[in-house]
C-alpha cells in the first residue's frame, strides 16, 4: 500500500476562517466557509467534490457540510478518532481514497468554537460517563483527578524530566520559538506578541510541571484542505503539495492521553511508528526535511517528538533546542507560523495548511531550502503524520 500511496495524491487547495476567541458563528458555518475557501484556492467547485473526511470530534457531519455547499454526491466519507491525532490522518484517508479511485476530490476539514463553545482544557465530565471503552479507560484516571489534557501530559512530562534532566525552561524554549514565529504572522492570535523565557517561567502553574505558557491556546476557527490526484493537481492554479508520505500509528498498550502502563514513560512510541512509515514511504531521512510542523498542544511533547522523529537522540532534545535550533534561522526551524501555541488551536489542521504554504513557497515565514515539509498530528493519542513535497 505504502509504496503506491507516496506521490499519488496532492493537496491542491487550502482554506481557513479567521482565528479568534469568539467566532460569533456556528461551527457549521465555519466549516462551510473554510471548505469554500479551500475550493476557491484550488479553483474547484462544490460539484467537483466527491469525498469528505473529518474528525470524529468534529461537530459537523459530512452530509451537513455537503448540504451547505451544495455538494451533489459524496462517494467517500470518513471520520478519524482520537482527537487531534486525526489531523494528518484526514489527508491520509483522502490520499488513499484518491489513490484507489474511491474518490477524485476529497475535502478534509475541522471547524470548532473551542474557545467560545466547548473548551477542551476544562474537565469533560461526560468522558467518564460514556458507555464505551473510552469511558471505561477514563474511569482509571478522571475520578482520581487526571481529568484535563494538561494533567495527562504533566504526568509523562514529570517522568521525562526525571529521566533526562529536562527542565521547565527547556519546555519554555518551545513556547518562545512558537510565539516568536507567531509574532510575524498576521493570521496568528499572538501576532506581534512574542514572549520571553522569563515570561514563560513567571506564568502560573496549570498542572505541575506544566505552566500556563506550556499549554496551547484555545481558539475558534476552521481549516480545510482539498486533496486530489497529483495529475489533476497539476492542472490547478497552485503548485501541488505532493503527499510524499502519510501514516497513522497506535502503539502497544495504547490509551488516549494516558498510556501510563508501558515500561517506559518518556516517549511517544505511536509517533515513532508514524515516523518509521513516513521516512520509508518518502525514501528520506530527517536531515532532508526543510521544516517540521510539530503538533504543539503542550510543549514537552514537542521535545519528545524531535526524539521520536529522529531529529535527535532520545533524551537529547533539550540540548538540541538549547541554541535556538527550532527558531527561524536555526538548524531545524519548527512551526514557522507559530503553531498552536502561537497561531491558533485548530486541532492540527492549521499545521497542514502551513505545510502546504511552505511547499508552495508562500508562507509569511518562509523557510529557505527545497526539502519536503513534515507535519505531525496530536500527541499522546493514536496519531498521524505527513510529508509534503513539491512536484
Amino acid at each position, binding site marked *: 500500500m505504502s509504496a503506491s500511496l507516496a506521490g499519488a495524491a496532492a493537496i491542491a487547495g487550502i482554506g481557513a476562517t479567521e482565528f479568534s476567541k469568539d467566532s460569533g458563528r456556528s461551527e457549521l458555518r465555519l466549516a462551510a466557509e473554510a471548505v469554500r475557501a479551500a475550493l476557491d484556492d484550488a479553483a474547484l467547485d462544490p460539484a467537483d467534490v466527491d469525498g469528505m473526511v473529518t474528525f470524529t470530534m468534529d461537530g459537523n457531519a459530512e452530509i451537513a457540510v455537503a448540504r451547505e455547499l451544495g455538494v451533489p454526491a459524496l462517494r467517500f466519507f470518513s471520520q478519524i478518532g482520537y482527537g487531534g491525532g486525526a489531523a494528518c490522518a484526514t489527508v491520509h484517508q483522502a490520499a488513499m481514497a484518491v489513490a484507489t479511485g474511491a474518490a477524485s476530490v476529497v475535502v478534509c476539514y475541522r471547524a470548532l468554537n473551542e474557545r467560545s463553545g466547548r473548551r477542551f482544557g476544562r*474537565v469533560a465530565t461526560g468522558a467518564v460517563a460514556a458507555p464505551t471503552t473510552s469511558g471505561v479507560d477514563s*474511569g482509571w484516571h478522571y*475520578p*482520581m*483527578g487526571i481529568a484535563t489534557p494538561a494533567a495527562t501530559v504533566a504526568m509523562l512530562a514529570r*517522568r521525562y524530566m526525571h529521566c533526562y534532566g529536562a527542565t521547565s525552561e527547556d519546555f519554555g524554549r518551545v513556547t518562545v520559538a512558537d510565539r516568536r514565529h507567531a509574532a510575524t504572522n498576521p493570521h496568528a492570535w499572538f501576532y506581534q506578541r512574542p514572549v520571553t523565557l522569563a515570561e514563560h517561567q513567571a506564568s502560573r502553574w496549570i498542572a505541575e510541571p506544566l505552566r500556563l505558557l506550556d499549554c496551547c491556546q484555545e481558539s475558534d476557527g476552521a481549516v480545510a484542505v482539498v486533496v486530489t490526484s497529483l495529475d489533476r493537481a497539476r492542472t490547478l492554479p497552485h503548485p501541488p503539495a505532493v503527499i510524499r508520505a502519510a501514516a497513522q500509528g497506535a502503539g502497544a498498550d495504547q490509551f488516549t492521553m494516558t498510556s501510563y502502563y508501558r515500561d517506559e514513560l518518556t516517549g511517544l512510541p505511536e509517533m515513532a511508528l508514524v515516523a518509521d512509515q513516513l521516512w520509508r514511504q518518502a525514501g528520506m531521512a530527517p536531515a532532508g526535511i526543510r521544516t517540521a510542523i510539530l503538533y504543539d498542544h503542550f510543549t514537552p511533547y514537542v521535545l519528545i517528538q524531535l526524539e521520536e522523529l529522529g531529529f535527535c537522540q532520545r533524551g537529547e532534545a533539550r540540548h538540541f533546542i538549547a541554541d535556538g535550533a527550532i527558531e527561524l534561522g536555526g538548524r531545524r526551524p519548527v512551526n514557522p507560523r507559530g503553531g498552536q501555541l502561537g497561531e491558533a488551536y485548530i486541532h492540527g489542521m492549521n499545521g497542514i495548511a502551513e505545510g502546504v504554504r511552505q511547499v508552495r513557497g508562500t508562507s509569511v515565514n518562509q523557510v529557505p531550502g527545497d526539502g519536503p515539509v513534515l507535519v505531525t498530528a496530536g500527541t499522546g493519542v493514536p496519531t498521524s503524520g505527513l510529508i509534503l513535497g513539491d512536484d
Partner: protein
Amino acid sequence: MNDEQIRAAAARITAAGDSQPRAARDPVNLPMIRNWIEAIDPGSDPDPDTAPPSMIQAWTMPGLHGARTGDDPLGQVNQVMDEAGFTSVVATNCDQSYPRYLKLGEHLTVRTRLLDVTGPKRTALGDGWFVTTRSSWFSGNELVATMDFRILKFKPREPASHTPPATGNPAGPMRPLVTPDTAFFWAGTAVGELRIQRCASCGALRHPPGPMCPACGQPADGGYVVAAGTGEVFSYVVHHHPPVPGKKLPMVVALVQLPEGVRMVGEMPGVRPDLVRIGLPVRVAFARVDDDLALPAWRPAEGMLPDRVIDVTPTFVISSALATRDFQDVHHDRELAVKRGSKDIFINILTTTGLVQRYVSAWAPDAVVRAVSIRLGVPCHAGETLTLSGQVTGDDGDEQVVAVTGRCSLGDHVTATVRIAR
C-alpha cells in the same frame, strides 16, 4: 488619613515598645486546664502536670467584660485603621513558641508590642494593611512564651460578598464506568482491597484490567489477587487549574508503581506537593466518595500522621471558645454571627491553635512542643467536619517539623507547622 499618616502612626506606636506588663487574672490552674482539654481534646489525660503549651494566650485573655489596656498597641493600631476606613479585620497568622512548659501555680504577665505594619495591600477580601504584634509571657522575669499575631485590617471589597474560593467543588465527583470486566476492582475498593486482575489461565497480572489476557490470549475470567498495598511514586502531577469536580486544589495525583508489577493512578490527598518525589514509598488508602464508591488513593508510607476528624457541633464551637476564654459573640451567638455576615458561629483562633498542637502531641505524646505556627484560611463553621492531617516534613535528629492541614468543606481552614523535640 492617608498612607503616610498611617505609617507615621504605626512608627510612633512601634517606637513606644512593649506595653506595661499585664497580669493574668488567675495562676496556671487545673480547673481551667481540665475545661480546655475537655472541650478541645476530650479523652486525653485530664490531669497533666503541666499546662498544654498552646493554652498560653488563654491565661491572659481579658475575660467576658474585659477591655484592652490603654497602652495596648493592637488597640491603638486598630483605632488608626478604623479612622482610615480599614474597619474590617481578619486574623491571618499566629506563630507561638514555648521556651518551656508551664507548671500549675505559676503567675504570668504579658507584654505586647507592635512589630510591623505593612500595606496597603490588595487582597481577595479588599485593600488593607497587615498588622503584626508580638506578645511575650513572663513567669517572674523568665520569658516562657512568645506569640507573633498577624491580622489584616481591610476595607471590604463588596458588602457581604462571599466569593466561593477557587478551590471549591464545581460539581459532584466523577464516577468510573463499571462493567463486567472492571466490577471486581471497584467491589474491592469498596471493601478496602486493592485488587489486581490475575489471568485464570497463565497467572499474568494486569492493570487496568480487561476481559482478555494479552499475555496468553485466554479470557481473564474475573480472577484477581489482592495487592500488598505498597508502591512507589513513578510520576505525579500537581493539579492547580481548572477546577475538578469533587476535588480540592491544588492536589497531587500520582502514578504508582506496585511491587506486583503494575501501575495505578490515584490521588494523594492531604499530602504537601513539595514533599512528593519520584521514588517516594507510598501505601494505599481508600478515599470513600459515598456508600457505593471508594477510590484508590495513596499516602506516603512514612511520616504521615493519622487523620483526626472533628465533628464541629455548635457545642464544640462554644465550649472550646469559652474554655480558651474567648468571649467574642461570633463564637457562641449564632444570631449575632449571622448578623455580622457569617454563615454560623465559627471556631476561634485559640481553639484552632490548640487543636493543631494537641493533634501533633497525640501522635508524639513524649515530645516537647517548641513552636506552633498557623496560617488561617477559610472559617470553620458549626455544622462542618474538620479533618486534621499531618506529615513530617523535617527531622534533624533533635527537632522534628510536622506540617498540619485542617480542611473543612470550604477548603483549608488552617495550615500549620509544629516543631517538636523528641
